[in-house]
């Protein structure tokens, strides 16, 4: 930068600034993508209790202290179904190191039970019905689409949210980082 004349530096910075303002304004107006995870959301999520496929009430708080990956999904959502086999693998690989996946289905129990059996789901499938969409919206899912995934560190703070499928490599990186972080 020191090779540029002060005048051209000024112009470049001003242009970059205007671009940044425009981009920020655009995303601020048009989407939720600019919102980072809400630190208070972890508390909300850990305070949630939902029935599992057998109708037994399960409090998410029981998994506090783990790296918790909460995935909102549905059997009618193809991208959701596509990414779940990867979650099953990672649960198997990292389960005994303090990683817990939990699914919250925007669906009815019979369909969830059937799909869980087909897939060999090895983590809890809670059933939230369409009301779970509202819960996900309160946790940063702006447009209310699926899949929506929240990743909590061991202290219960939301470290990452993802609307749309998670890349396996990203998920592995995040799990690694959060396991290395002191609880």
């Amino acid at each position, binding site marked *: 930068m020191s090779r540029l004349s002060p005048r051209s530096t000024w112009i470049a910075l001003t242009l970059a600034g205007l671009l940044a303002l425009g981009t920020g304004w655009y995303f601020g107006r048009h989407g939720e993508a600019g919102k980072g995870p809400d630190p208070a959301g972890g508390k909300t999520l850990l305070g949630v209790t939902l029935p599992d496929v057998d109708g037994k009430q399960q409090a998410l708080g029981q998994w506090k202290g783990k790296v918790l990956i909460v995935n909102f999904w549905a059997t009618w959502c193809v*991208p959701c179904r596509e990414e779940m086999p990867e979650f099953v693998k990672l649960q198997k690989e990292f389960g005994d190191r303090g990683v817990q996946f939990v699914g919250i289905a925007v669906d009815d129990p019979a369909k969830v039970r059937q799909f869980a059996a087909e897939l060999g789901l090895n983590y809890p499938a809670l059933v939230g019905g369409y009301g779970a969409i509202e819960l996900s919206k309160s946790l940063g899912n702006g447009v209310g689409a699926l899949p929506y995934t929240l990743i909590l560190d061991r202290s219960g703070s939301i470290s990452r949210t993802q609307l749309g499928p998670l890349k396996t490599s990203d998920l592995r990186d995040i799990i690694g980082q959060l396991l290395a972080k002191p609880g």
Partner: protein
Amino acid sequence: MMHLLRAWAWPWALAAIVPLAAAQQPKLLEPERAFAFSVQAVDENTVEARFAIANGYYLYREKLKFAVEPVALAATPVLPPGKMKHDEFFGDVETYRGALAIRLPLQGSPGGSVTVKAESQGCADAGVCYPPQLQKVTVALPPRGGRPGEPVYATPPRKSWFN
């Protein structure tokens, strides 16, 4: 002077980077805008239900349902054939993209106004699906031989690129 510029540069540089980083997740529309529903009264006993499906989004044909009140439909609405999409889980499914128009014949000539309810379910190519949406529009029916009404939107369309 250089020193001053460098001090200036930090907030500008950060301001430029932060929104770009935040934009990595797919930018998605609210379902009522991705699948914009409108209804136009065609004549005294026909209304046309329309979806303007945003680019990069699609609706499932078999999930589309229509109901009217206070009158009843005179016949089951004829849904145009969709585009076949092979789905790993659901087999071959028919989907709609772009503009979709479906005529709804009403029983008798009810006069007054009619409310059309549409249930739809769709997804975005970006890799998300929306839960079933219920959208509702009320239109006034023209008298026999009268002119068709104006289209009425469930969610008013945006007026420009900037809002």
